[in-house]
């Protein structure tokens, strides 16, 4: 039977559709749960409402839970009682990260920090963390066996501590141009613990085998790394972001690669230590980084990680292609490279989209 294969753009659209379809229900339920909470203080109430309804559109995490659970033969709906608390906990971490990084705007939207200030942002983060854990307590009543809840909580705890450690290590990188890419990548791997937690938890919920759980855990870790590296790549081409990274955070990986060359280092260090980074400075940084091969190096690294990530899901019963495409979607800066897989198994994707 002749079947028309979708174009790259169509595939990307389909991935977005999958994320939306699979993540929307949990996102809406999370929103309702938080907004139903009785909060007397108007400012906290408004900040929570802003975060949950205008700022936070995270369908990717719950969708990933759903896809992975189904991939090991589980019912994706069983992930919802866990997806909601996980979203709230991730949201809490995100808000507190913004306080540390002093990120007042993300994308085109003000963060909770940017709109309501440090004090309210801190309280809102705490409230979401608290609510998330309260909902985990209730997950047992919603059909998740107590022993699984205990394992899930242990994973969340380890992840949280790993992320905290990564954040603290990253603080030591602030304002430094002598960080090696290897040092930075160690922190990137730690920061990717969040996505690994999601895939691991979901494989457990779906009763995956030990081998599947481990493979999907590593897949998540690598997927998380790709997402972080993609942000690093994007940050260096965006004036506002690169200025913020230089002043408030760790330098992005393409720049760290470029700084390894003494010649580039001497060209860039005077700009990087300037009090204010102008748009022209940002342009020079981008050009010099590109000339030194920093961007290409990161693209190649992302390709390599994506290839590695795909290998961990190649033996899955279902959703193999969906997860591979998700990897590709996150690493969309790199050339589209799994057309062969699409040709080999087009029906798999159709099933995913409609299920």
């Amino acid at each position, binding site marked *: 039977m002749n079947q028309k294969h979708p174009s790259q753009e169509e595939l990307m659209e389909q991935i977005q559709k999958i994320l939306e379809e699979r993540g929307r229900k949990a996102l809406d339920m999370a929103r309702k749960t938080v907004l139903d909470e009785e*909060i007397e203080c108007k*400012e906290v109430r408004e900040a929570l409402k802003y975060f949950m309804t205008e700022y936070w559109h995270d369908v990717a995490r719950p969708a990933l839970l759903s896809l992975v659970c189904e991939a090991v033969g589980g019912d994706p709906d069983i992930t919802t009682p866990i997806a909601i608390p996980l979203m709230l906990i991730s949201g809490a971490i995100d808000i*507190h990260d913004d306080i*540390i990084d002093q990120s007042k705007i993300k994308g085109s939207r003000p963060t909770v920090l940017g709109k309501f200030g440090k004090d309210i942002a801190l309280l809102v983060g705490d409230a979401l*963390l608290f609510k998330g*854990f309260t909902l985990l*307590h209730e997950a047992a009543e919603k059909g998740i066996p107590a022993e699984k809840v205990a394992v899930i909580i242990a994973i969340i705890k380890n992840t949280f501590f790993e992320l905290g450690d990564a954040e603290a*290590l990253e*603080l030591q990188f602030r304002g430094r141009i002598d960080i090696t890419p290897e040092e930075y990548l160690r922190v990137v791997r730690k920061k990717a613990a969040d996505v690994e937690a999601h895939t691991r938890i979901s494989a457990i919920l779906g009763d995956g085998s030990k081998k599947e759980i481990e493979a999907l855990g590593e897949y998540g870790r690598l997927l998380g790394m790709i997402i972080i590296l993609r942000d690093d790549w994007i940050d260096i081409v965006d004036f506002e972001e690169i200025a913020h990274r230089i002043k408030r955070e760790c330098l992005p990986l393409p720049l760290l690669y470029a700084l390894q060359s003494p010649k580039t280092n001497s060209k860039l260090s005077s700009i990087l230590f300037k009090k204010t980074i102008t748009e022209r400075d940002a342009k020079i940084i981008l050009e010099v980084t590109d000339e030194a091969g920093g961007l290409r190096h990161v693209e190649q690294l992302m390709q390599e990680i994506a290839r590695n990530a795909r290998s961990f899901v190649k033996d899955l019963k279902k959703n193999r292609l969906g997860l591979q495409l998700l990897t590709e979607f996150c690493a969309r800066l790199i050339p589209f490279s799994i057309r062969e897989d699409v040709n080999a198994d087009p029906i798999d994707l159709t099933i995913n989209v409609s299920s």
Partner: protein
Amino acid sequence: MKTKEKLIEQVQRLLEERSQKSLETAKKEILQEKRECKEINDAFMYYVRNWNDVVHPGLISIACEAVGGSADKAIPIQVVMLLLTAALDIHDDIIDESKTKYGKPTVFARFGKDIALLVGDAFLMKALVLLHKLEKQISTEKMDAIWDIINSRFFELGDAEAFEASLKGNIDSSPEECFQILKMKASTFEAHMRIGAIVGGGEQDIVDLLANYGRALGILISIREDFIDVFEPDELKNRVRNECLPLPILYAFKNPQTKKIILDYLSKREISDKDAERIVDIIFEEENVEMLRNEVKRLAEEAYNNISGIPNKSLVSRMKILIKGIVEDL
């Protein structure tokens, strides 16, 4: 003076005896997590070295025993609540920009906002994880009640913090507004008593009475701290900049003339020991502060009444000592 010292010593001993085991366990629990970053490890060590919260675990133990439960039974929940209280305390210091507490630099002052935020988060996470683990030891019914209390009191405390943050640096805040914040903040004391009584197996009516005692006690402790802050120039300066003014000052402000005199002192770049002494003298002479003292007396009475029906009379007398120790020299 000698009698007063004895009373405070008694209170301290009463709480220490009931807190030592849980405090040691809580310290071990938080330090056992492995971390690569030296600075954050140092921050944890620093907090743990200076961590001597005997009040919160002490209250849980007292409430548990008051309803006939064994104090040892309360240790695991004491550990959870210690960690939780520490988390909120560390985060509160960031909001209030508190540099010192009990004469020592806070984590915020010593390690900065970012590390303090991460340390507070870690305490919060550890507390919530250990609370989940208690589900194996405590009945589902009791656990549901405990989660409910912690959740609602937590949100009440958050509300209080936010309310307080909105009044930061506002010298025209009314004493009534700040008293309301103080009442809301006392929700943690109520929660500790309530949880202790539930773990001990108390009936609902006695649980409620003990909770009321806890709320009154919490308010009294805060009022006491507000009086103490008036004596401490550094703390007073911080309160002017970053928090609500201490209640005795706000009550004194009801008299416009007194308000003007005190504001002259508070607006100075530095408040000297002599200035603080003068403020104290003015406050203690101000008739409006008497209203606050009357409220203290009323709350103490309310606390006594709440525990009068508890059969363990020896414990009741110690609970009364606790209140007396707090209000004695106000």
